[in-house]
């Protein structure tokens, strides 16, 4: 799996952190997305896809 995040689009909603906090975090200084793991194992796919789907700014792209 490969994940790309766009900090320019991110609005700091934190939805991705709720969906998969082992993969996404929010930076302390500005609250924007911090990608902890760009290549998580395949069994995390459902949660990562959910994170991308609920991102209000469509700032997460996932490819398998």
């Amino acid at each position, binding site marked *: 799996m490969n994940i790309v995040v766009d900090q320019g689009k991110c609005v700091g909603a934190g939805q991705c952190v709720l969906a998969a906090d082992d993969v996404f975090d*929010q930076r302390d200084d500005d609250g*924007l997305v911090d990608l902890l793991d760009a290549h998580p194992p395949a069994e995390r796919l459902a949660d990562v896809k959910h994170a991308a789907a609920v991102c209000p700014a469509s700032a997460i792209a996932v490819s398998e």
Partner: protein
Amino acid sequence: MSIDAERLTLPLPRPNVLELAPLYEVLRREAPIAPVTTPAGDPAWLVTRFEEVRLLLGDKRFGRSHPEPEKASRVSTAAVQDGPTGEYATEEADHTRMRRLLTPAFSAKRMRKLGDNMEELVDGYLDALVAEHERTGVVDLHHGLAFPLPVAMICRLLGVPEEDNEKFASLSERMAGTEIGDEAQRAREEFMRYMVGLVEGKRGALGEDVISDLVRAQADDETFDYVQMVRLCVGLLFAGHETTVNRIGLGVLFLLTERSRWDALVADPDGRVDAVVEEVMRLGAPGDLGLLRYAREDVDIAGVTIQAGDAVVLSINAANRDATVYSDAEEFNPDRPERTHLGFGHGAHFCIGASLARTELRVVFAALAKRLPQMRLAKELDQLQVRATLTGGVAELPVTWRSA
């Protein structure tokens, strides 16, 4: 049922505080973007289908400001989300600056860390309610829990004295009032004066709180208008408690009006509370309108042309019950396969307090299920006093756990 060729007038009357007007179902199917007359008597577009509501929330051709604010349609006689706000020319930059300033203070991680603190607070409120119940047999969860928790949390985050809660709660209530005419506008002005007093009182001794952060940022940035800063503080204090107070009330009603829903949560509070909270966010439908936007240019969508300057009311309530998106859309079912909803909005204006609200709701519903498993409503749903405000909800939540 079909739609009259004439313009509909909002609000569409609803059967009770938990259900929506049946007409929304027809609108979603036959006229997902319909011309309507607002409660203020002005023309607007009402958007009811999930797809279009989500699309327009994320579309930069729609904003909160208007090039000629005095000519803009007004959607409500309340003094919140009633008309355009902000400067048309600088709206996006102003909004981006605001998000940058506020996002760290409301991040998911920080809100989770407040969870333990919230649990202690909620335990204290429940102790007091249990003691009262021993004397009276019936207690009001609205005054004893739904109101004080969000108020205490937003006061701590913003740096507002908690002892002012009656003052700002009453100002919020009047500011959002839909049946009090100009009184709502007067309440907004009074709220602004209250906030100016608070801001100026802090200025000499700024602390670690959101209002202090905003005062510092405004002092350091000459493009950051003072009135805009004060208005933002008012908005945060208003939205930071009003919305969650209502949502706790609606959630309790969904759970207690159908015993099997409550029993399922009681059986496994920690395992089920997250899904319950999301379903309360999806199905809870506060207020009768929706989120307000103005078109910044002409937009063709769903068979209509929305012209630049037109007002658009995005019905989150209707979108979250769209049968083309949700199976048994009107049913309260935390186990549903669909995991998304628009309860916190979408796009650039996505609720900045979403993680705060989720944490509060989880703590409240888990604690209620653990400590008061026998709880039931002490009044019929139809007898509960509904608030005549833009954000709706109930003014009382009488419950009992006496053996019947």
